[in-house]
């Protein structure tokens, strides 16, 4: 069974059809890339899947359950995580506390979370993520004081803290130093292999997407232009035209 099924999602803003009947599915353990030129509807599609905007039509299923219209909080509880295009860390909390805060709803009893001066085991999990993301030297600094690239890594690590079964990553390479992009790709591959979850990645960095993703959906003007393996997408004439012009 597909972990995510997106069926005929439509969303318009006035006369503009931002997403126009998009359908695709994501299989367990799969890393699916979503590419397309600016304005092709990728972020609107993401926000429709994640309940941050209400699509005009269509249905989204997570593990066979209809999640259309579910709030971000409900989706998170079901095992769906996300990262944002813009940084969303908690600037005054330390990096380690950011990670702990990101998973606290899912751990321990109400009374334990409320009064126990412990982290209910989340500290160990946070340390594991810190090590994986190689952020040990800044773990106790306020997240807001870190460099953009480090904050981006914190953002991604936070999404993975509760071990979600599906993670949607919105432009993980945006603003990241090009020399670190390969490292970020290796991290995501490791997370995919360790945690076994599925990822959907929106990204403009073609090299990153081609090397990371198992399958790619190419969107143009709110519609799906092509779906296929990276090498199929790279050699698809329509995709090349969409990016480079006829």
């Amino acid at each position, binding site marked *: 069974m597909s972990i995510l099924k997106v069926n005929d999602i439509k969303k318009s803003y006035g006369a503009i059809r931002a997403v126009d009947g998009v359908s695709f599915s994501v299989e367990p353990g799969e890393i699916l890339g979503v590419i397309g030129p600016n304005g092709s509807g990728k972020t609107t599609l993401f926000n429709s899947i*994640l309940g*941050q905007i209400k699509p005009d039509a269509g249905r989204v299923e997570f593990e066979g359950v209809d999640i259309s219209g579910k*709030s*971000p*909080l409900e989706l*998170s*509880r079901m095992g769906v*995580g*996300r990262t*944002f295009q813009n940084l*969303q*860390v*908690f*600037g*005054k*909390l330390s990096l380690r*506390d*950011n990670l*702990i*805060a*990101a*998973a*606290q*709803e*899912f*751990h*321990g009893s109400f009374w*334990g*979370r*409320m*009064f*126990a*001066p412990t*982290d*209910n085991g*989340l500290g160990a999990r946070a340390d594991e993520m810190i090590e994986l993301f190689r952020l040990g030297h800044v773990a106790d600094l306020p997240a807001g004081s870190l460099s953009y690239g480090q904050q981006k890594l914190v953002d991604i690590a*936070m*999404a993975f803290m*509760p071990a979600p079964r599906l993670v949607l990553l919105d432009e993980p390479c945006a603003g990241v130093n090009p020399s670190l992009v390969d490292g970020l790709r290796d991290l995501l591959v490791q997370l995919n292999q360790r945690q076994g979850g599925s990822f959907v990645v929106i990204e403009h960095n073609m090299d990153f997407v081609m090397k990371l993703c198992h399958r790619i959906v190419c969107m143009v003007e709110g519609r799906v232009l092509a779906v296929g393996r990276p090498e199929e997408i790279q050699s698809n004439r329509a995709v090349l035209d969409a990016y480079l012009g006829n």
Partner: protein
Amino acid sequence: MIDFFQLLISGIATGSIYAMAALGFTLLWQASGTINFAQGEFVMLPAFSMLIAMAVGLPLWAAFVVALIVSVLVLGMAFKRFIVDPMRASGVISIVVATLGLSIGLKSVVKAGYSAEPHPFPSVFGDEVFKLAGVTISYSDVGALLFAGLMVVGLQLFLNKTLTGRAMQAVAQNTFSAEALGINVKRMIFYTFAINAILVTVTALLITPTYLAKFDMGDNIGLKAFFAAIIGGFNNSRGALLGGVIVGVLENLVGAYITPSYKDGVALALFLAVILVKPDGLLGTPAERKV
């Protein structure tokens, strides 16, 4: 010199009580963007809850427990549900106007429904005094200082050392991200309102023996808490503590060494000086505004 130390200790004790009300002020602002101009009346109501409970025969400690429960339900849950939640979408000014109206309404209800007269209120720590190195210190000052200190330290430990506390801080810093990460934002905001309700109830227990239970007793406390919060830094809970203690000590010293007539003007003068020189408050940080 002995007088000075006496005034200093008494000022710190009074200031720590202001600090608790100020702390509630800043917590509500940070978690939910609520500026509660009825904070003074939020101190007055638990005082009357305790009076009513004692009038039916409960001892002070039991009356305090009853007042805590009533405060969490009325000043925490109902205030959030019926006043703040419907107003939040309309912005801060709507909440300010609503809480100003609530302040007037609560005073009128207590004045018309209970009494316009001041009512004596028992002190938890008694009226006795003791001498330490020649300085006369009252048990109530020491008790207020300890009680307020315990509350503040307990709150800081809760916010910094527990999972829920960290989540509350996360919500205060970035609500959007907190929700997307699965933090129950509504619940965290309710906890903040509940904590404020507990803080004002403890403030009422400690300050009412001095101010007496009266429908307008909150005017002074609310104003001083507001000034203390601004002086210390509205977006910093430690700033609220500092602001409260500064106001308490200075008004005591000015009242004794200059004239009691200026005592109530100290907080206002300090408030004006701080917003002119350091608008973010002594420990506050510049607020970011999204445009």
